């Protein structure tokens, strides 16, 4: 019996643009089990970024319910949402979002600082995880001394280091050349094999195929895809 870690029911998100009310997500139903590698495939303007923001607890739904690890995510104070993000979500961004003045290791330590992990443990955990993504010899390099693929590996290490419930990747290969992108996807598959739960947002069907499950989002509506790995 798979463990359900994410559940959305009739989730609606609307934005007020001037006088007009714009419905971006039109009743999403979605369940994710532990160990899933879910690709959310959709063109730009489909609402997939909004969906990602809600999954990542950066935004909250207008109506409907969203349970993450059994907790109802709603309009909570920002301090509570920040704790949930820190604990549950490992973000991986298209543009890596590394802090340029910090070393690779310091970048990976960042979420642990906010989790209140002591310095010694931070160093041990960040070193271990950087080794896992194949950057044992680049720990003291700054982002600008690393290639794009290496930078994304640092970002993946940063997402993994807190051992979050979900790895949430937004176009993780979008800023990389095809070959490097494939290497990153290979790493994602390895993580999937290890039992990590991954949600990957992409507009690229070829990239989406790497997932164990694909859902398509078009015009604010979600439909289960046909592809299964």
């Amino acid at each position, binding site marked *: 019996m798979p463990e359900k870690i994410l559940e959305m029911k009739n989730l609606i998100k609307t934005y007020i643009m001037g006088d007009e009310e714009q419905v971006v997500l039109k009743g999403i139903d979605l369940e994710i089990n532990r160990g899933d590698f879910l690709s959310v495939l959709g063109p730009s303007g489909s609402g997939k970024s909004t969906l990602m*923001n809600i999954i*990542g607890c*950066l*935004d909250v739904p207008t109506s409907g319910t969203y349970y993450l690890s059994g907790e109802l995510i709603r309009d909570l104070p*920002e*301090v509570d949402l*920040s*704790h949930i*993000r*820190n*604990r549950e*979500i490992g*973000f991986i*961004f298209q*543009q890596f*979002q590394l*802090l340029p*003045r910090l070393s690779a290791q310091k970048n990976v330590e*960042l*979420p642990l*600082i*906010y*989790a*209140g992990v002591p310095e010694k443990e931070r160093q041990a955990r960040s070193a271990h995880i950087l080794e896992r993504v194949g950057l044992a010899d680049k720990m003291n390099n700054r982002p600008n001394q690393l290639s794009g693929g290496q930078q994304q590996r640092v970002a993946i290490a*940063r997402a993994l280091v*807190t051992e979050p419930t979900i790895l949430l990747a937004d176009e993780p290969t979008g800023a990389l050349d095809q070959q490097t992108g494939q290497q990153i996807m290979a790493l994602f598959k390895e993580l999937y094999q290890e039992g990590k739960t991954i949600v990957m947002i992409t507009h690229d069907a070829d990239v989406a195929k790497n997932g164990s499950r694909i859902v398509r989002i078009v015009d604010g509506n979600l439909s289960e895809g046909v592809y299964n790995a």
Partner: protein
Amino acid sequence: MLKESIKMALENIVSNKMRSFLTMLGIIIGVGSVIALITIVSGATSTVTDQVASMGANTVTVQVQGTPLKQGLTQGDVNKIAELSNISGIAPTISGQTSVAFEGNTMDEITLQGKNDVYFENTEDVISSGRIIKSIDTENESRVALIGNDIVNELYVGKNPIGQEIKIGGITYNVIGILQESDSFSSTDTNSSVIIPYTTAMGVVGAKYINSMTVYIADEALADTTTRQIEGVLTKAFNGDEDGYTIVNMQSILETIEEMTSILSMMLAGIASISLVVGGIGIMNMMLVSVTERTSEIGLRKALGAEPKQIQLQFLIESVVLCLIGGIIGFILGVSLAWVVANLIGTSFALTASTVLLAIGFSAAIGVVFGFMPARKASRLNPIDALRSV
């Protein structure tokens, strides 16, 4: 968290050296000028008060103008003052004009002063050689004299005057000492003076009145009360005529000087602190620019789990660190300037712990006050918008 924030703040400041320096300049100038002014004024104050205190902080001086009926104080009046409590000694002065002679040579227009042992005990460097007037001289109305340098040079050429005789107003005295040479511009020119025991001046020379006196107070804290009591005796001595004398309490002069200079120093520091406010606005400006520039960093930190108050603290620490560095540089410059000025105008230079604390406290406070608004702005950024602004 705090340690990380301070480290990151320093890294940010170092990586924007030029901008950080220009921003700090306002704080540097502000703190520097406040510290320089306070240090210079307090140095000058302590020099002035030291000078006044060296005249005797524990003294009350009485100048006697006299009335038509009574031109000065009598020994009886002085005795009444001596009987008051809290008096440690009285040094009366009688002054007049006389002529001196030795071995047939005469000098006119010589200042004659009658003093007692109390004066010499409380005043330093009166004589350059010989001995001072002692209480036994006062009691016995001894015919002894201290003579000024001009008299030595004119009447005792090639001789040591000590032990020699001198004729003052036709009466023969023994020279027991030579007065310290005074520069000719000094208000107390003693070069052509002779000093004899004041009792001798009254008993032998025939002076009727004491012209002035210095009263030494035992407990300075009670100086005001004692001064009022002395006033009472003096007013009675002149039959109720308060114009017969002038009384000056050194302690109250000292207090007045200190009060005035502290007002002056606060005023100057107040003017200089305007530049601190200007510097603070510069800090606020730079912090606002920094928040805008680092919007995506703020978004990322929030996505990774930073609480709003942690973001706020980080930016507040940056602004405080910036101000503290500026404050320390300003403090060093201000103190150096004060040191140079103190040496140039010859006042004393004293650096107090309170000045150091003032500089550090002020700059930290400016960091908090002017960093608060930018830091709060950073903490309130919406992470979605912040992340999008790549």
